[in-house]
C-alpha cells in the first residue's frame, strides 16, 4: 500500500533543513523558476525507507553545488577544497535528514537505510514518483524526489 506524501510537506522539510543547518536563515530555498536544469556533472544522494512502507528520497544537483553545500555544512571557507569523502558524507547527510523527516510523515513504522551517493542516479525499479521538485538554493538547482515502491 502506498501513502500520500504531499509535495508541500517535502518542500517544508527542505526549507527547515536549509534554514536551520545550512544557512541559518529562512528563505534560502525557493522553487526553481524557468526550464528544468540540464545537468552537466550531476551527483545524486539517496536514502531508502524500509518496512511497511518502502520508498526512497533522493537529491540531485551539480557536483559544484554539492561542493558548495558541503562547504556550508562543514564550515569551510568559500574556496577551500572539499575532498570526495567529505562531499559524499555532507551531501548524503542532507538526504538522510530529508528521508528521516519523510518517514515521520508516514503512519506506518519502518526504518531508514544508510545514505548512498553516486554520480549517476540509479533509478528505482518499480518506483512511483510521489513528489518531485526543483529548488533553487542561492540560484543553484537541486532536484528532490520522493518515490514509493509498490
Amino acid at each position, binding site marked *: 500500500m502506498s501513502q500520500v506524501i504531499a509535495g508541500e510537506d517535502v518542500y517544508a522539510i527542505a526549507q527547515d533543513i536549509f534554514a536551520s543547518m545550512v544557512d541559518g536563515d529562512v528563505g534560502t530555498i525557493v522553487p526553481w523558476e524557468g526550464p528544468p536544469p540540464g545537468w552537466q556533472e550531476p551527483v545524486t544522494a539517496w536514502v531508502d525507507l524500509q518496512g511497511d512502507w518502502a520508498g526512497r528520497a533522493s537529491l540531485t544537483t551539480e557536483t559544484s553545488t554539492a561542493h558548495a553545500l558541503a562547504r556550508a555544512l562543514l*564550515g569551510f571557507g568559500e574556496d577551500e577544497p572539499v575532498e570526495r569523502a567529505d562531499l559524499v558524507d555532507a551531501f548524503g547527510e542532507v538526504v*538522510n535528514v530529508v528521508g528521516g523527516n519523510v518517514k515521520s510523515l508516514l503512519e506506518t513504522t519502518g526504518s531508514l537505510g544508510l545514505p548512498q551517493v553516486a554520480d549517476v542516479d540509479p533509478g528505482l525499479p518499480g518506483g512511483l514518483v510521489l513528489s518531485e521538485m526543483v529548488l533553487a538554493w542561492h540560484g543553484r538547482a537541486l532536484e528532490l524526489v520522493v518515490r514509493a515502491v509498490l
Partner: protein
Amino acid sequence: MRALVVDDSRTMRVIVARALRTLGFETDDAEHGQAALDKLAATGPVDLVCVDWNMPVMDGLEFVTAVRKDRSLRGMTIMMVTTESEQSQIVRALAAGAHEYLIKPFTVDAIRDKLELLGLVAAGEPV
C-alpha cells in the same frame, strides 16, 4: 565540561561538535556506538553524550542501553540527536535511558535550549 559526539556522518559530528564548543564544551567524537563505548572505556565518563540513532555496528538505542547497564558510566547525560522523529521512537529512547531528544534538523539555539534544560549550560542569555 566534556562531550562525546557519536554519529556515523562526519558532517553531523562537525556540526554538533562546533555547536557544543561555542557553548563551552571540549569535544571528542566516535563513528558509532561501539567506538563510543571503546572511547569511554579508555577515557572514563564524559558530562554529555550526543548520539545519533541510525549507525552501523552499534546504533544509538543499543548504545544508550549499554551505557545504562554500565555502572562505571553513571552520571553521564545522554541526548539522542537524530532524524527519527515518530512519537513512539522518542518514547523508546527515553525509556531506554536517554535524558533528552533533539530532532534533526536543529539550530544551535535548539541545542542550547536542551542543554539549559539539562542544567549543562547556564540559562537566561540576554535577548
